[in-house]
């Protein structure tokens, strides 16, 4: 078991194996996201209250989901990097930040666009929206720390601490719609409960969520691979790769 753990920590090994995974993640993401959005846009029935504007859900919910999962991964990898000084884990944490920030931004923007026809306003200072905005600032903080500190290990340490402190925000986002009286509708997705939507509306959403997870995996792998190259440029295997091109 421990040899597996050590191998996972080896950037060279990860670079090799992830190169083989990447096309599969990209293909799966492509197929699922196209299927999900065509189904959601053209075939799903409209909402009896919100009409067709509800179709924004197929972008909004998956990106909001991923924004939180990505933060969780970033914080856990930051902790692993802090405790076991695993280099690869620091690289994963660093690569998570820009992807997570873009997904949080997308969730906020699509939420605002959806809010206009549904609530009559782009923005309200409601618990769910505000905690999502805090998440965006946490991501931006991590990105700023990473670019401000030139020593890689120090930067990784500082941003790991920030992301661990910010982890408090994740349950706040999740339960904000239950704890406070908000405009935001309750969770449309749950692992335990039966879906509240009809299956024709719910299936494309599930496909979009899985597709976006694959897309996220592909993006993360792409960023980690560049990060590995930039850190290992002195090693023989990277030099061999450069010469081969």
């Amino acid at each position, binding site marked *: 078991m421990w040899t597996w753990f050590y191998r996972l920590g080896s950037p060279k090994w990860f670079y090799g194996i992830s190169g083989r995974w990447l096309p599969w993640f990209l293909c799966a993401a492509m197929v699922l996201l196209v299927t999900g959005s065509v189904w959601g846009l053209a075939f799903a029935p409209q909402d009896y209250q919100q*009409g*067709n504007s509800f*179709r924004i859900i197929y972008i909004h919910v998956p990106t909001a989901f991923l924004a939180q999962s990505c933060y969780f991964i970033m914080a856990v990898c930051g902790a692993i990097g802090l405790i076991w000084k695993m280099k690869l884990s620091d690289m994963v944490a660093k690569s998570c930040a820009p992807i997570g920030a873009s997904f949080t931004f997308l969730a906020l*923007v*699509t939420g605002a*666009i*959806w809010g206009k026809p549904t609530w009559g306003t782009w923005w309200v200072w409601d618990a769910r929206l505000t905690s999502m905005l805090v998440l965006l600032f946490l991501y931006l903080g991590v990105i700023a720390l990473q670019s401000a500190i030139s020593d890689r290990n120090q930067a990784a340490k500082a941003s790991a601490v920030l992301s661990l402190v910010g982890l408090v925000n994740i349950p706040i986002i999740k339960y904000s719609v239950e704890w406070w009286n908000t405009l935001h509708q309750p969770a449309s997705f749950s692992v335990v409960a039966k879906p509240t939507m009809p299956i024709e509306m719910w299936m494309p959403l599930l496909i979009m969520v899985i597709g976006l997870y694959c897309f996220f995996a592909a993006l993360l792998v792409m*960023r980690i691979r560049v990060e590995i190259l930039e850190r290992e440029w002195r090693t023989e295997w990277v030099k061999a790769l*450069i010469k081969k091109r």
Partner: protein
Amino acid sequence: MYFESLSDFIAMGGHAKYVWSSYLIALFIFILNLVLPVMARQRFFNNQSRRLRRETSARNVKIENEGHDASGS
């Protein structure tokens, strides 16, 4: 197909600007997310291969000069 016609589909029951703008922004951000790491990778390989070439040519010049000095003395 839920909609009756293509123009119906594009109109989105009057919500066209909200639905389509969300999907367009999403598409833009997805593509940006794909392009950025590809560009960073390209940049890395360009810079590094230039550096490698420079280093090898500098080493060759040095070897040549040393050879010249040896024969001259």
